[in-house]
């Protein structure tokens, strides 16, 4: 049982404000992911939950009690780091059993044995129990580190980029592993990463943190489809969303996105009316862009020139220049274009995003 509440939490290092007015509720047994670039304040947030870093002002409540009043045992957090600090002279079995052998626990040997075996089986390391860490691959070591944290059955599991220095292949495998493991152990998990696909794959909810401030909290589908601002939209997706600056103007009482000679009709909304005459940014995800040689039969199109085409597996990433902007489109690998060939980009209106140039706030999202 553990829910965690942040109330107006601030954290300063000297003059530098690492965390600004953080308000957040992490629910019991939730897999909560904090996504952000390096320096966003993710690790600081984790350390404050663990009680390793004191808050500068505000309050963090664990099950309704301020963590300042709790002893480390009462906080009952287990932390897994990017680097896995295993005891090199102990076998995998002893590494996992280590927290259980703490004198205070007084756990009988057969219970220790049962617990270690159960966790090892879940993590798929039961075959390596007699080995030393040096004899394991990076992914296996990371599993041992997870196992050692898991056997304690902590109320809260804190994970700080546990996969970030594994290679791509292993990272994907371990991500699936963590997802599976999570379903076998009902703990609250707070997981920090800079990798958006990890966040989408693992999180029940995701908080996007930027320069110490939360930009949005929501389910993976909410933050991906309905980002609150340009920053959130940009941080989810690979290749990332394409952006094009323009203004909203009225064309015979219809509001349109205007840039140079281009006019793209916009759906009627009171919200957009307020932005007439102002600068806005059009956003399109690479997978929603179609490329056509002839002018498409839709007003939702832009004219461009081929920059370069790259094949990646079954997909092609086609880069085109729209004015002085580089756009990327993701599609099936079928047509080959020549350098600088003129091309039209076309999309369906429901896949169009609009943001305020000024504040970055989303004015239009998918399905509006």
């Amino acid at each position, binding site marked *: 049982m553990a829910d965690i509440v942040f109330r107006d939490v601030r954290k300063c290092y000297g003059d530098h404000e690492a965390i600004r007015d953080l308000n957040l509720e992490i629910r019991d047994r939730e897999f909560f992911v904090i996504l952000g670039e390096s320096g966003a304040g993710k690790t600081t947030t984790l350390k404050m939950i663990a009680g390793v870093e004191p808050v500068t002002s505000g309050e963090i409540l664990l099950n309704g009690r301020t963590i300042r009043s709790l002893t480390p045992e009462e906080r009952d957090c287990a932390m897994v780091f990017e680097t896995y600090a295993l005891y090199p002279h102990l076998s995998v079995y002893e590494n996992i059993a280590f927290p259980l052998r703490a004198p205070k626990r007084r756990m009988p040997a057969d219970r220790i044995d049962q617990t270690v075996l159960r966790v090892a089986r879940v993590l798929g390391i039961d075959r390596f129990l007699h080995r030393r860490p040096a004899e394991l691959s990076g992914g296996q070591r990371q599993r041992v580190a997870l196992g050692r944290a898991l056997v304690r059955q902590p109320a809260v599991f804190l994970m700080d980029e546990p996969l970030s220095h594994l290679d791509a292949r292993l990272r994907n495998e371990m991500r699936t592993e963590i997802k599976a493991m999570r379903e076998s152990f009902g703990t609250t998990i707070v997981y920090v990463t800079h990798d958006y696909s990890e966040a989408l794959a693992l999180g029940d909810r995701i908080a996007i943190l930027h320069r110490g401030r939360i930009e949005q909290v929501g389910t993976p589908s909410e933050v991906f489809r309905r980002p609150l601002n340009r920053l959130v939209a940009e941080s989810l997706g690979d*290749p990332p969303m394409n952006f094009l600056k323009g203004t909203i103007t009225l064309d015979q009482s219809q509001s349109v996105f205007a840039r140079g000679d281009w006019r793209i009709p916009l759906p009627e909304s009171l919200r957009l009316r307020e932005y007439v005459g102002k600068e806005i940014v059009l956003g399109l995800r690479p*997978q929603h862009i179609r490329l056509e040689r002839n002018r498409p039969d839709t007003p939702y199109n832009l004219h461009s020139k081929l920059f370069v085409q*790259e094949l990646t597996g079954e997909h092609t990433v086609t880069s085109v220049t729209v004015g002085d902007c580089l756009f990327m489109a993701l599609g099936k690998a079928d047509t080959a274009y020549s350098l600088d060939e003129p091309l039209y980009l076309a999309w369906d209106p429901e896949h169009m995003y609009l943001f305020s140039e000024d504040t970055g706030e989303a004015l239009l999202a998918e399905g509006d």
Partner: protein
Amino acid sequence: MAEIILDQLSKRYGKKHGPCAVKDLSLRIRDREFMVFLGPSGCGKTTTLRMIAGLEEITGGNLTFDGKPINDLPPQARDIAMAFENYALYPTLAVRDNIEFPLKIRRWPHSRIDEKIEWVAGAVQITDILHRRPFELSGGQQQRVSLARAIVREPKAFLFDEPLSHLDMKQRQVMRALIKRIHSQLRKTTVYVTHDQNEAMALADRIAVMHQAELQQVGTPEEVLNNPANAFVAGFIGEPAMNFLDVEVGMKSGRAAWISHAGNRLADLPGALDPACHHLLSAPLQAGIRPHRIEFSETRMRATDLAAEISTYESLGERGILTVRLRSQDLTILTLPEQTFRKAQPLWIHFPPEHLYFFSKDSGKRLHPDPLDRKRTG
């Protein structure tokens, strides 16, 4: 003209029996080609590149450049540009002076320098930052300047060592497109090292896949993806990775009849097995199938469908990854985004035989049981 030939090139550390970083590597890098060395860390790809650059002593074999042996030629005499090994820009010089530097040393006339700078700045999109100092630039901009400086002196070949690995996602995409575009404009022989199969697929004319100091396969991106030479290449290329299953071939009156996994029939073979392959069937065999080729349904459609248990589902925005448990083995299946799966939901798995690959379990070598050996489409 710049054709680079590696003939049984080796790098051995220490004495005669020391460990090999690169072992008997033979490869012809064609003039104008974009060749990518791909492999996990420690496979010998960077060592190979450094031998080509002249930064690493060659301990066996021959390296020739347009037919001339260059084993003992110092790096500066090889007319090869190593782009952004690190940015190594002169901090006190403006961007423009940084780029001009190699040309001034070569005593190019001013008019030619100006013309060249204008062109290169346009090509790597740094025209608006030519007057700035390196410390005023972002990592991505510094890298463009470093790239410009390498291009500008018109070397015969370019070498790149993991140039994108420390850029963030967005910059990486843009730089990748830029490198590819510059190559398609200049068509200079390029050797590029990476551990990222996605990057290799996107950039290469041909990919040389390396593993444990040895060359595993050389081919176009399509070839290494659709026609892998062995289980290592098959598993390393493609995202998510290929699934591997232990299988046996069941024979009926001398013909291959079916493939089974743990005693369960999972696919029927459409034709006769080449007699030359018979001996392979007594050895342990592995079947491989790509995650997007596995078909699944809630009801059993065929006698060969196998029941699987859903273990996890990861929705990744543009696609979903379903992990299921089949007997004692996990399988990865690529799905559309936002599909919903219930944990206890029954799932029947179908392996289309035309999308199965076979490998010897011992050697990892790809086997071509004849009835299945036809042109594949991934």
